[in-house]
């Protein structure tokens, strides 16, 4: 057990030194195996992990979903989504904020990245909110929180990673995210209602749109709907594997951007290279995390932890609640992807041995990541908005996000209390 704890400590030390986490985890994993089992096995297992992670057909699902999201973002589709949402709910108090959440949910159905969703909204929704006099705190809070819907509503990069690391069905995880994602969107809108009722001046309603105009606005988004229907419907219906669906979706999004004449040769090249870079970054982390997990699994730590929990006599649900509490706290200061990759080798075996469904735990993990992404002081979505909107200070963004952090913590509790919310849809799958 001491060996693994020293390993964790070493990673944190290296991370504090600002060593990229992929190298920190990989190096510690390698050294750990080397010191406990010998250097030849360490070299062999490193070569094997790199080779196996590199040459893996199923893992091509990662770049393909990233590519799909990037093509759709490039096609400028978020504008139409926002316009359509605005046409229907823009006349309510705080209507632009509601429309932003709805557009985020729609965008999340094609894009698997929370940060990309928030970044896209900062270009699409922020200018309109600013024009109508929305306070910066409210508008950035809504965009940051709405952006996180990108990873709960399928497709979702973090679900794919969780699925790969824990060998859980990605298709089932995707299905499990639908209801929690939509519920979270509803909760965010509820929070907007509460926030704007206390400060109506900073969230004036927009103009009412007539029904013919509404139908017209819907026509702008039928392409996305078709794409989402084919890709996600295909995966749920068992017509596609997740990888096939991702490939189909990426190609569809490519054709879509092409037909809308939004794609130049240069643009195509940029989208491809950007997606490839994200892929390389993720795989560096994935390889390093696998290596580190191999080391941890050879130590007694996972077993010791399991025994300690059994002996403490906590009820299974209490164990999960305790884990989630640890995650929420860790998530305020840690980068979420690393947090998940580092803790899964310890937590996942406990959760499954307590008899919980790995799909359900996956949804909880996604919710945790969502919360972590918007909880100060270290929340990537907040930083991204701060970087993209130079006129808005970080302190205002921090102020605006609190109500939504609270709502999401409540949502996490709901998901723990009612596993059916996550598990009903996947149970319908073959």
């Amino acid at each position, binding site marked *: 057990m001491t060996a693994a704890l020293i390993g964790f400590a070493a990673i944190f030390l290296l991370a504090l030194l*600002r*060593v990229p986490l992929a190298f920190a985890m990989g190096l510690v994993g390698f050294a750990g195996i080397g010191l406990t089992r010998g250097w030849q096995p360490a070299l062999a297992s490193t070569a094997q992990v790199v080779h196996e992670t590199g040459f893996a057909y199923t893992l091509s699902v990662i770049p393909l979903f990233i590519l799909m999201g990037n093509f759709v973002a490039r096609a400028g589709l978020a504008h139409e989504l926002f316009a359509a949402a605005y046409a229907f709910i823009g006349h309510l108090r705080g209507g632009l904020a509601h429309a932003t959440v709805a557009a985020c949910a729609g965008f999340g159905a094609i894009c698997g990245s929370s940060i990309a969703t928030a970044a896209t909204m900062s270009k699409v929704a922020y200018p309109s909110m600013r024009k109508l006099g929305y306070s910066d705190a409210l508008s950035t809070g809504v965009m940051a929180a709405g952006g996180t819907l990108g990873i709960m509503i399928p497709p979702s990069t973090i679900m794919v990673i969780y699925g790969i690391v824990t060998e859980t069905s990605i298709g089932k995880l995707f299905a499990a995210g639908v209801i929690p994602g939509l519920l979270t969107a509803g909760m965010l809108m509820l929070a907007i209602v509460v926030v704007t009722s206390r400060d109506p001046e900073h969230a004036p309603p927009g103009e009412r749109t007539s029904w013919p105009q509404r139908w017209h606005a819907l026509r702008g988004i039928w392409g996305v709907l078709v794409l989402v229907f084919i890709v996600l419907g295909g995966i749920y219906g068992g017509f596609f594997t997740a990888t096939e669906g991702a490939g189909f979706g990426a190609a569809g999004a490519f054709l879509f951007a092409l037909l809308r004449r939004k794609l130049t040769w240069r643009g195509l090249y940029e989208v491809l290279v950007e997606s490839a870079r994200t892929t390389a*970054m993720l795989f560096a982390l994935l390889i390093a995390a696998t290596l580190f997990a191999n080391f941890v699994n050879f130590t007694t730590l996972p077993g010791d932890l399991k025994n300690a929990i059994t002996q403490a006599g906590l009820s299974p649900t209490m164990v999960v609640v305790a884990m989630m509490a640890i995650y929420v706290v860790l998530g305020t200061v840690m980068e979420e992807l690393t947090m998940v990759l580092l803790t899964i080798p310890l937590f996942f075996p406990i959760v499954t041995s307590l008899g919980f469904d790995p799909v359900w735990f996956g949804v909880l993990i996604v919710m945790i990541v969502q919360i972590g992404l918007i909880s100060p002081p270290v929340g990537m979505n907040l930083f991204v908005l701060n970087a993209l909107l130079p006129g808005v200070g970080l302190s205002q963004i921090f102020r605006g996000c609190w109500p939504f952090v609270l709502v999401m913590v409540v949502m996490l509790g709901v998901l723990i209390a009612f596993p059916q919310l996550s598990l009903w849809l996947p149970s319908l799958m073959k």
Partner: protein
Amino acid sequence: MNKFLDLLCGLLSALALFAIMALTFFDVLGRKFAAHSIPGSLEMTELLMVVVIFGALPLVSRRGEHVEFDSLDPYLPRWVRSAQRLVVNVLCGVVLLALGWLMWRTGGQFAENGETTAQLRIPKAPFLYGMGVLCALTGLVHLALLRRRPPERVEGEGAAL
């Protein structure tokens, strides 16, 4: 040199990624609607994945896009940050050069055993050599970063979550 690296790695990974997309698309179309898949498409995807990942790795390092814990940056004096940069880049450079050597060595073993893919019988060794070379190249990128600041990163680009 930098432009050459960008272009080489960029084109390599971009073409490979586009190929994976096209391959998967036509394979699925063929299989589902014409009962006729592309032979060996799975293997080709696997080989191309290696090209995408390791082709783009030097670019990730050059642009400083790896996930790092950088929240302390504003509070650290300048000299600490220069020292940090030195230590980190030397460490990453050494790790990647070593990994490059390891993958090259593994490639040698594959070549000796004559390992090929199952269906199309494409030799795997060249791809492992390629992994090794690109890892080493990434290591050199880190060593080159010792001499100058990395370019400021645009937040949100290359982000995974």
